[in-house]
C-alpha cells in the first residue's frame, strides 16, 4: 500500500465536509472517487496531499522519496504568463531538481504535449493544461499521483487520450493513482477500485466491477435485428432503432445473451445501465 487515509474527518464551520472516510491505493492501481459536487472529493484529496489538516484521522504514505505524492486539485494551477517549458522549469528549480533542456522536453513528451510551443500557457486548451499539470505533478518522481476531476472541461477525444495516459502511468510506471469525478462513466472504464462519497460519507467501496454489478438492474443491448427478438419482448424491453433497453440484473444477463444468440440475434454491444439512485443510496 503506497498511500492510505484512515478515518479522515473535516468540518468547515458547521458543515461536515468529510466524515470518517478511509481510502487506500497500491502501486499500479487506479482508484476512483465518485460523488456529486460538494460530496467531499476535493477535501479528501487536499488532506491526502497534505495541504490541508484533517480534524481527525491519519494519512500514511509508504514512500521514502523526496516527493512521495504529486497531484492536481480542481483545475491545474499554472503560471499563465509562462509557457509550458517555463512552468516546468520553475516548478523543477524550486524543488532543487538537477535538470537540463532534454529533461524538460522528455517531461512534455511523456504527457503528450508538443515541444515546440513557445506561447504562454494562457493560450492552451483545457486538455493541454491538464497534461501540463500532470507533468508538473510527476516532477521528482512521486510514487502516487492524485488527480481531482481531470476530465472536467475536456472533449471526448481529450478524455480518451487522458485516460490512456493515466493507464500508462499506473501500468507502465507503477504509480498509485487516485482520480475523482462526478461522472461515473468517466471512471468505471479505467479504475480498479471505486469509492462512492455522499455528503462527506463513504457509502460504497470495492472493486469497480463489484460496485457496478451491485447497482446494475438494466442493460442496453444493440443488434441489427434486435426488434425480432421474442425473449426481449417477454422481458418487456423498450426498443429504439437497433437498441433495446431491458430490465435485467447482472446475475441474469449472461443467460439472456445465450437466449438471444439462440434467436440468431447478433449482439454488437451490451452496456450495463447503472442505477444512480442505487449507487448513491446509503
Amino acid at each position, binding site marked *: 500500500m503506497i498511500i492510505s487515509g484512515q478515518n479522515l474527518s473535516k468540518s468547515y464551520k458547521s458543515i461536515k465536509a468529510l466524515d470518517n472516510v478511509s481510502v487506500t491505493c497500491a502501486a499500479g492501481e487506479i482508484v476512483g472517487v465518485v460523488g456529486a459536487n460538494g460530496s467531499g472529493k476535493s477535501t479528501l484529496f487536499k488532506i491526502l496531499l497534505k495541504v490541508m489538516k484533517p480534524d481527525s484521522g491519519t494519512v500514511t504514505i509508504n514512500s521514502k522519496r523526496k*516527493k512521495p505524492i504529486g*497531484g492536481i486539485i480542481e483545475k491545474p*494551477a499554472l503560471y499563465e504568463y509562462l509557457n509550458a517549458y517555463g512552468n516546468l522549469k*520553475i*516548478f523543477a*528549480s*524550486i524543488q532543487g531538481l538537477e535538470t537540463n533542456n532534454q529533461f524538460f522536453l522528455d517531461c512534455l513528451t511523456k504527457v503528450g504535449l508538443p515541444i515546440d510551443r513557445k506561447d504562454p500557457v494562457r493560450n492552451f486548451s483545457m486538455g493541454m493544461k491538464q497534461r501540463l499539470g500532470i507533468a508538473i*505533478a510527476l516532477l*521528482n518522481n512521486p510514487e502516487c499521483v492524485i488527480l481531482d476531476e481531470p476530465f472536467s472541461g475536456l472533449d471526448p477525444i481529450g478524455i480518451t487520450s487522458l485516460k490512456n495516459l493515466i493507464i500508462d502511468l499506473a501500468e507502465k510506471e507503477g504509480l498509485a493513482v487516485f482520480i475523482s469525478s462526478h461522472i461515473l462513466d468517466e471512471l468505471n472504464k479505467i479504475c480498479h477500485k471505486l469509492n462512492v462519497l455522499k455528503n462527506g460519507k463513504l457509502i460504497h467501496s470495492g472493486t469497480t466491477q463489484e460496485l457496478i454489478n451491485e447497482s446494475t438492474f438494466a442493460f442496453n443491448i444493440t443488434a441489427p435485428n434486435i426488434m425480432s427478438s421474442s425473449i426481449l419482448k417477454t422481458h418487456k424491453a423498450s426498443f429504439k432503432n437497433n437498441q433495446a433497453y431491458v430490465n435485467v440484473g447482472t446475475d441474469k444477463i449472461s443467460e439472456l445473451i445465450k437466449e438471444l444468440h439462440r434467436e440468431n440475434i447478433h449482439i454488437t454491444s451490451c452496456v450495463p445501465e447503472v442505477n444512480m439512485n442505487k449507487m448513491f443510496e446509503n
Partner: protein
Amino acid sequence: MKNLIIAEVHKLFKQGKTYYAIGAIFLIELIILFSAYSQGQSVLDILLDNLKKSFYFEGNLLNGNLLIYLILNTLWFHLPLILIIIISGSVTSEYKDRTLLSIMLQPISKWKFILSKYIVGILFTLVIVFFLAITSFLFSYGVFGQGDLIVYLDTLNFFEASDALYRIKHAFIFGAISMVFYSIVSITIAIILEETTKTWIAAAFFLIISNILLKVNFNNYFLDNWLYVKLTDTWQYLFYFEIPWGKIYWNTSLLIVYSAVTMIVGIIIFNKKDIA
C-alpha cells in the same frame, strides 16, 4: 533557498505588470523633475525674500541639486504606492491563480517559500531606488547642472555642491530603508488578506495614514520617537546643517527592527495557514 529566490526573480520579470510599474515610476520621476523646475524659482523667491534686502545673489540656486531635493520630498509617497502594487501582487497573484497550491504540492518548505518572497521584494525595492537615484542624478545634473543647495528646515541652510551630493546620496540610502519597510508591510498584508484588491486598499490606506501621522506633532516622547511613522522620513535629517548621525542611526535601526518583526509575523501567519 537560492532556487526559490531565483524563481521569484524570474517570475517577477516575466510579468508585464512589472514593466508597467517601472515605466510609471520613471515617468513620475520625470514629471516631478519638470514640475519642480517650474515651481523652483517661486520656491526660491519665497525662501530668499527677506535676504534680498541685504544681499545680492551670485550663482544659480535653481540647479540639479535643488531639483533632486524637491524630487526627494515627494518621491517617498509616490514610489511606495506603486511598489506595493507589484510587491504585494507577488503574493496575491499566487492566491488568485491558485499557483500557491501547486507550489505547496511540491516538496518545499512553507516558511522558505514566503521568506523568498520577502527577500525578492526587498531586493526589488532597493534596485528600483538605486536606479531612481542614478537617473535623477543623470537627468538633473545633465540638464540643470550642479551648484549650491538651499534647504529650509527651521533655518535656511546652504550646502556647497559636493556637500549637497554627499547628503543627497545618503538621503537615497536612508529613504530606501523606509521603502523596504513599506514593501515588507505590503507582503504581510497580502498574506493576511490574500485577495488582490483588498490588499491594495489596505496597503494604500496604511501608506496614506502614515504620511498624515508623520506631520502630526504628538508632544509625547514615546510616540514622537518610537512610532514607526516618525522613523520613515529619517532622510530629512541629512539636510540639517549639522547632521545628527546618532538620531539617524537610532531611527534606522528601529525601523529595521520593525521591518524584521513585521516579516517574522508574516512568515508565522503564512506557515500556520491552510493553503487549500
